[in-house]
């Protein structure tokens, strides 16, 4: 199932709302500023995490993933104590995690908290996406104090501004900007990236005061490949008529993968896979949905949709398949192989040109997983994703899927989205009402 794809990915989040007071979504989508309270939206816990959603279904075999996500700071601190290693926060899934892992570093993804905040206004342009400001807020609010370093692999300008602003305003020991090529469809992209990886490696070695041994890098590549294979195997089970896991649980699983040591995650996945065959969701599957977008870590939204009588069976976003869909080749020079892996992965729209390779990939996934409908989301002001929406929508419609487009902000208005989602599900349910 590791499809042959030549693509890059994207993810940076997007724009959003201005400052405001907790419990209200502050952004006026039209004027992009705070123009008055909107209905209360879900609020989430701090510390870069969110509180458990009521009636959350991810008990049992998925509890470990959720616990990691909810207390990622504690996990990272314990990991440092246990291993004596350093932790680097990265901003985009183009970050070559294997290289850092081989250096004894735990790479963790910096994500937002989905809380209204008022600390980023002076630092991020008003028309930049909500995700980039949500991420920066976490740094400014001191929720990633356990990080020893930060790094970014170039994806989009919005998230890069988060990185540079973090560099400037949050005290940090180490930071690195990796010029990940944009034109990944060029034959020069992989060789270029391989050279950049070598420079990044030298920078890490300089910072740590020791070399990254060749066997350590091979080991890291193996562990990361293993993780992707295990994630694929869990995803495969979602093709069943009644998938043994919900979309919310799948999301918890992938999010945790971006936060914890892959060896711990692999052990949890092995244990999960042993338990999945006899597992059933405690509710009907309902409508089979796909979700597509930049990053969709809004657990509360996913939970709301599934509670309306649906199950997400597949996705195309960078807190899902785009993160782990492509493996690294086993043979050859390790940096060349890693470079090829990141250049050829399922692309982010920022890198998916001149050919739009992500569209046929997404349609193939939808068909393979038997999705009936697709929720196409984007972060507000995310131009690369927005530019893909018409092509994506048309291709999915042509393939027989109905689509619902939603624009996300730091917080989502659950009530307003719910009526759209319910109406969408009513459309999918054929003629129940007629």
């Amino acid at each position, binding site marked *: 199932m590791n499809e042959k794809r030549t693509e890059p990915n994207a993810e940076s989040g997007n724009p959003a709302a201005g400052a405001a007071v907790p419990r209200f979504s502050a952004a006026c989508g*039209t004027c992009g500023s705070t123009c008055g309270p909107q209905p209360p939206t879900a609020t989430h816990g701090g510390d870069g995490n969110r509180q458990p959603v009521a009636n959350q279904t991810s008990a049992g075999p998925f509890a470990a993933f959720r616990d990691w996500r909810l207390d990622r700071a504690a996990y990272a601190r314990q990991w440092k104590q246990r291993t004596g290693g350093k932790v680097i926060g990265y901003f985009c899934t183009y970050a070559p995690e294997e290289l850092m892992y081989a250096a004894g570093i735990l790479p963790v993804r910096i994500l937002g908290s989905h809380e209204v905040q008022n600390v980023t206004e002076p630092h991020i342009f008003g028309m930049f996406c909500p995700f980039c400001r949500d991420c920066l807020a976490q740094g400014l609010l001191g929720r990633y104090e356990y990080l020893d370093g930060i790094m970014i692999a170039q994806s989009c300008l919005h998230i890069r501004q988060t990185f540079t602003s973090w560099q400037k305003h949050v005290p940090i020991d180490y930071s690195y900007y990796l010029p990940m090529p944009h034109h990944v469809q060029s034959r020069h992209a992989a060789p270029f990236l391989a050279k950049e990886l070598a420079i990044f490696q030298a920078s890490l070695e300089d910072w740590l005061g020791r070399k990254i041994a060749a066997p350590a890098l091979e080991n890291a590549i193996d562990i990361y490949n293993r993780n992707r294979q295990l994630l694929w195997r869990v995803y495969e089970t979602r093709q069943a008529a009644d998938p043994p896991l919900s979309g919310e649980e799948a999301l918890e699983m992938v999010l945790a993968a971006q936060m914890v040591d892959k060896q711990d995650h692999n052990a949890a996945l092995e244990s999960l896979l042993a338990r999945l065959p006899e597992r059933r969701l405690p509710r009907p599957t309902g409508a089979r949905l796909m979700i597509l977008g930049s990053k969709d870590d809004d657990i509360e939204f996913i939970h709301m949709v599934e509670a309306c009588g649906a199950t997400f069976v597949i996705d195309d976003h960078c807190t899902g398949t785009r993160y782990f869909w492509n493996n690294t080749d086993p043979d050859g020079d390790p940096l060349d192989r890693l470079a090829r892996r990141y250049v050829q992965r399922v692309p982010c729209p920022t890198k998916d040109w001149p050919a739009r390779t992500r569209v046929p990939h997404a349609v193939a996934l939808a068909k393979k997983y038997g999705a009936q409908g697709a929720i196409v989301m984007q972060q507000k002001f995310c131009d690369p994703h927005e530019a893909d929406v018409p092509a994506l929508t048309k291709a999915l419609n042509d393939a027989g899927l109905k689509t619902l487009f939603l624009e996300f902000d730091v917080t989502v208005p659950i009530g307003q989205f719910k009526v*759209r989602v319910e109406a969408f599900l009513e*459309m999918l349910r054929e003629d129940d009402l*007629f």
Partner: protein
Amino acid sequence: MSAAQEFWRWKEYRWHDPAVDWRSAEIISAGVDIGSVSSQAVILADGRLYAFSSQRTGFDSPESANQAMKWAMEDTGLTLKDLHYTVGTGYGRVNVPFADKAITEIACHARGANFMHGPSVRTILDMGGQDCKAIRCDEKGKVEAFLMNDKCAAGTGRGMEVFADLLAVPIEEVGELSLSVEEEPPPVSSTCVVFAKSEASALLRAGWPKNKVLAAYCSAMAHRVVTLLERIGVQKEFAITGGIAKNRGVVRRLEQELKLTALSSSYDSQIAGALGGALFAHTLETKRRKSGAVPATESA
């Protein structure tokens, strides 16, 4: 402030058809639409419109539902027990205590408009109290696609209420008055209700008469929903539902922009959602009886 000064306050009303004997009907179905601003209850006797009410929504949705239904049943002898199947819809659809099922107002408006305007209607614009929906449907009134305003509540009934109050013009007269201008002014530029109100205040201070300010606002509102409609694709058989459908100042300008005439109907545009709910209720009760299932009201 006394009630007389509340220019935004639209008239609440009820109606029932004295010519119909509901006791001889096989199926009594009902729809209750709890909107953000107004609530309607509609009762059908064997699929035929029998009674309805329309009133303001209070802060307590279940209570608003109870009151709307109670008022619709007034003088008819009907009680809640006589309703075979009830559908709740609208913003408060899950808060209708006596409903058998909740269905979105999007599906209900399409179904209601199909009943009001006939099976040819393909595009529906529901202009409600705090949101606005463009709906495309098939000949049965089944939704094929829809879009809702997702940025702010400009271009909705609540915005019009704000202007009625600002200009001290009873809400029912806003549309006509806005059409009395000799020359159409440019629309107000702000899309935000609050900023549009500030802009209107400035226009008044600059000496604009009320009708001209209202024309500028109605025009902005029409312009705004046209963009929503164009995104979903407007077909010729086009109808408007919801409270704003009663505002000729908005409807006329909308028709001019679209170069189309909205279908007219003898039914009250504001009950479309509740009517659609009652029609679904009728279908669901019919299906239930065919399947021999336990009455929904007893299993609930």
